[in-house]
């Protein structure tokens, strides 16, 4: 009897938490498809005003431009970051010795450095180098992160040394071993790293706000934030902007969710 009561409580608790977790996103979706007046009345069913909202949004903001920028910055950053950090994680684990372990622990200190502390000198450096409003300017500070290096280092621990030895005997050079053996076996770690990096890049707000001084270079989060400036809020249009800004990360999330969980599990071991 007690067992059964506990089970029921468990289901109720999880259901309530799940509803609270999903509700704001559902509300956003409804608001994006309704007129602002209906949103204010508390309408909770998807409506038919999506196209009107879209027309208003496109008339007031350069959505296509911001979308293109966001994709351009995020994809470039993810690709480069994955290459560099996985190579480093591989190097730290497979060829580890005292010196490399020391280097790693120094790198980990960088995790503690708050972005606010590096933001101003980075801004000065980048504006001197003419990197404001550029993709390189966006990606440079976050290509190499201690977190990703650590994720790949932890996962490389499960990569069997026998395979490496066998590959060496077969005449593969060190880079080929990394490229042909390590990358294919570590697929779930790469998926986790990709999810994290892409989302962080897409969602980054402070850094682009600092260096994207030109309206043509702004990202989706910046565009959405711009929508709230003004006295009267058109909720339908605003939430459509939020929805457009959220769709890419939600898609990535659903596609890579399983491998993301696997990758994290591998790293936490």
């Amino acid at each position: 009897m007690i067992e059964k009561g506990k089970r029921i409580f468990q289901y109720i608790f999880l259901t309530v938490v799940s509803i609270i977790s999903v509700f704001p996103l559902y509300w956003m979706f409804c608001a994006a498809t309704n007129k602002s007046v209906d949103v204010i009345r508390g309408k909770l069913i998807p409506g038919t005003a999506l196209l009107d909202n879209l027309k208003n949004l496109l008339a007031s903001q350069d959505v296509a431009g911001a979308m293109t920028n966001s994709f351009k910055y995020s994809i470039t950053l993810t690709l480069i970051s994955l290459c560099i950090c996985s190579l480093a994680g591989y190097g730290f684990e497979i060829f580890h010795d005292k010196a490399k372990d020391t280097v790693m622990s120094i790198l980990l200190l960088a995790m503690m450095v708050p972005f606010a502390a590096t933001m101003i000198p980075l801004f000065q450096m980048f504006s001197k180098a003419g990197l404001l409003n550029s993709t390189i300017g966006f990606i440079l500070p976050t290509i190499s992160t201690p977190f990703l290096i650590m994720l790949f280092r932890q996962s490389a621990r499960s990569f069997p040394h026998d395979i490496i030895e066998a590959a060496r005997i077969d005449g593969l050079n060190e880079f080929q071993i990394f490229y042909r053996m390590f990358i294919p076996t570590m697929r779930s770690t790469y998926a986790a790293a990709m999810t994290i990096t892409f989302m962080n890049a897409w969602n980054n707000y402070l850094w682009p706000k600092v260096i994207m001084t030109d309206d043509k270079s702004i990202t989706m989060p910046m565009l959405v934030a711009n929508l709230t400036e003004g006295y009267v809020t058109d909720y339908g249009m605003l939430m459509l902007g939020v929805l457009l800004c959220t769709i890419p990360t939600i898609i990535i999330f659903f596609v890579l969710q399983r491998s993301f969980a696997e990758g994290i599990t591998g790293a936490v071991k």
Partner: protein
Amino acid sequence: MSYSNHNIELHTNMNYSHKKFKLKTRQNLFGWVCLIPAVILIAAMSFYPMFKALILSFRTGIGAKMTWAGFNNYIRMFQDNVFIQALKNNFIYLIIQVPIMLVLALILACMLNDRNLRFKGLFRTAIFLPCATSLVSYAIIFRSLFAIDGFINVMLMKLGILKTGYNFLAYPNSARAVIIIALIWRWTGYNMVFYLAGLQNIEYTIYEAAKIDGASPFQSFWKITVPLLKPIILLTAIMSTNGTLQLFDESVNLTNGGPANATITMSHYIYNMSFKYVPNFGYAAAMSYLILVLVAILAFLQMKVGDKRD
């Protein structure tokens, strides 16, 4: 005869070890080549700017006309009411939000780790979903939900709890509460995934054995789950502390620091000081160094506490 034979053997042996030595060095060299790009980037994009910010924090002035200021920036910081308010706010968020979120995440993870639970994937996906929304997006969603004409007010009025809309974002305490609620909503699932990953490495048989020995679920939670998850709990605690001390997007987009700077965070104030008002990079750098020191101290303390419980 035997002498020359020996000589040949020695020679091939030497040749072999020489070759092996070369191979080892080559591998070691490859190991270093792997690291170089990542190490250079972190050095140039984190450590070097950090050092520059330290120098900057002792200077004052605008643009190229900067002069040395000694400790003036640091003294000014503690006489600046807005900054003190920002510092307090960061700590309010930290002390209230982080424990609630971590405990909730741990409870949820334990519930979802139950083998006999149905719809596990559905619950997990739903609870993790908030992490897929960008910080700016969810800040704006919560701002709209809690606005005076927002959904929460409409519901409260329909239910008869409120007569007129309550402007949550116009009063310091309720505005801070909204930020805290929003933060918990956004990050609980994220931490839960870390705990779930950790729980998967704990053998299920340990729990069964404990159950046979007569341990209550509460006991097995405190005596098995918490100690075995300690490294991950420590990791999430440090990450959350670090994140909370650097809050920016929520302060900007949910409340815009208002009402009258009552909810502003340190990073938000630093941003305003550098890029919104007349830029004062020296003073902003000094404030950012306080965050750096706080992050370091708190991480150190948490690691100490984490170690002690062994």
